């Protein structure tokens, strides 16, 4: 039995082997396609969720705009409390969506990229419109809440992570005492470019607090010192 004569490798065995590679490829492709399909569903679900949130913010902003138009003739003691109410409602929705949008990287989006980018752009425009309106309300009604424009970028900005955390803390603890508008500098929008130009934002993160520009990361304590004088008592929560 030990004599080392060798026969040919059987053809059937060879075919069986080849078919295993093909079979494995077919199965893997099938699982892969199912995975892509489920991913596609998840992506669509998230994209439409963000889209509808953005739309509802758009509606609130439009309402604010209309109401301001309507209340222009009415005396301030009547119109200001109403507008304040609307602003409060809009602001909380804006901040929660901005958090979600910041998290949702379009790097991970395969099919809905255009859609998500479009939502981000729309959202940015609502944000800016809201900011303009709120600035006007602030002037006309003499509100104290500081208005902060926060310029950030999603990718490769580690300081933005820290700055974002600090602002989240302020938003959470101070509520409507401070109004924050986070703007993704990476969004391609002429209106955004106008603001970036006006305030000379050449680095992220940057904060514009009531028209005063602060470039670079602002610590919690420094930010506190900037906004607290106009807020007063509520700041003790920080």
């Amino acid at each position, binding site marked *: 039995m030990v004599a*080392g004569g060798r026969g040919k490798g059987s053809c059937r065995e060879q075919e069986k082997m080849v078919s295993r590679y093909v079979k494995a490829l077919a199965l893997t492709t099938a699982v892969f396609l199912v995975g892509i399909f489920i991913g596609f569903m998840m992506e669509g679900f998230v994209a439409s969720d963000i889209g509808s949130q953005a739309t509802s913010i758009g509606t609130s902003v439009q309402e604010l705009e209309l109401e301001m138009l309507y209340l222009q003739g009415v005396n301030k003691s009547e119109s200001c409390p109403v507008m304040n109410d609307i602003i409060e409602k809009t602001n909380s929705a804006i901040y929660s969506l901005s958090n979600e949008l910041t998290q949702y990287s379009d790097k991970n989006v395969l099919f809905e990229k255009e859609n998500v980018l479009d939502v981000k752009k729309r959202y940015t425009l609502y944000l800016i419109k809201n900011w303009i309106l709120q600035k006007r309300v602030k002037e006309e009604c003499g509100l104290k809440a500081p208005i902060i424009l926060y310029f950030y970028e999603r990718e490769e900005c580690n300081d933005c992570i820290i700055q974002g955390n*600090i602002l989240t803390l302020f938003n959470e603890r101070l509520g409507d005492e401070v109004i924050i508008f986070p703007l993704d500098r990476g969004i391609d929008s002429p209106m955004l470019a106008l603001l970036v130009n006006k305030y000379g934002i050449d680095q992220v993160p940057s904060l514009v607090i009531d028209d005063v520009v602060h470039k670079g990361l602002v610590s919690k304590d420094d930010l506190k010192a900037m906004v607290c004088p106009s807020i007063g008592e509520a700041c003790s929560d920080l």
Partner: protein
Amino acid sequence: MIGPWLLFSLSISFLALYLNIWFMLSMFDRKANFFEKVPVASVLPVVSILIPARNEGSAIAKTIRSVRSLDYPRDKLEIIALPNACTDDTAEQATANGVRVISLRKAGKANALNAGIRRARGELIGIVDADTTVSRSSLRKMVGYFNDPEVGAVTTFTRVSNPRGFFGRMQSIEYVFSGMLKKVFSMVNSLYITTGTLSVVRRDAARKIGFSDETHTEDMDFAVSMIKNDYKIVNCLDAHAYTSVPLKFRALTRQRVRWYRGFISNARKHSDVLFTRKHFDLGSFVIPVGIVSAAAAIILTGNLAVQALTNVLVSVKSLFFVPLMDQIDIAVMTASMDPKFAMFNPYVSMMMLAVAASSLILAVASMKKLDRLKPKHAVLLPLYILVYYFFNVVWWLAAAAKEAAGSRRKW
């Protein structure tokens, strides 16, 4: 439309899933093979067991005793100890245990084995390292495979004899998986290693091919040469051998870097089998996949390390800008955010899920055949995947770097 990182992640998870499915098909589709009954030899051949040893005076007696107690006719079993360049009592120990001793002045396992096969009486040669013991029934189960004249070598299922400490336990899991891999590889005629944990080889083939210390691992060099000479190498899962593994990090690192360098240098030495029709399974699948997997593991781990480092840096920097108490609050707020917007990619995570599920099936199936699944594995398996894997990446990296630098090997 699709970024390079996403493309890479998707391709790697595709490859991983493909491999898992390929293994599953091998294991389950041809049940007769993975769970096969061992063939019985009509006539038991004479077997010469070679025990190469260098300064193994403390271990060799145990190895010899286990070989002597093999369930095999005494007159058909020759045991030869091959002490080479020893400065201790290895030769005396071997003589005292009543085996034939061929002492060699020159160092080197390949050299010792060549001397052994020249003078061995048996038609079959068994190779057992001095750190290994064999189970009583192993040899008898293996010789039946030589009924097939194409079979040139048979290997065992190797287990760890000293599964102590972290590295011992990790290796005991690793040996179960590599045991499964070897069986599957042997089923597609691509088992590329005949380890010194009892490999039985046809003497004529061994004489024809011979052992060489040119690469860092003579057992892979020999096995690939066998395959190139049209011999089949099969694995017998029912034949068990027990090897004592390095338990200390340094010793284990030295062993692994040598092994992985051996893999690389053998892939280079035998590059003529790569991407050929004749050796399709070995040259176009098993070896390239081994290289790609190692490279992918290095890249993935590197990326993970960079991300982890960035996170640490951000956290540290963050301490200067936000007090620690507030950071805890922020962490809670971030954690309570809607998870569907989290950073992970839906496609890669779906694929990862499929890979994890298929890996689990493979793990459970192989454990069922090779080792009983015990509750302790619930703790050890995650450690194996998360921690031990990382060490392996480091060893691969070190081996690749050393091989690239062409530095001289250190024994």
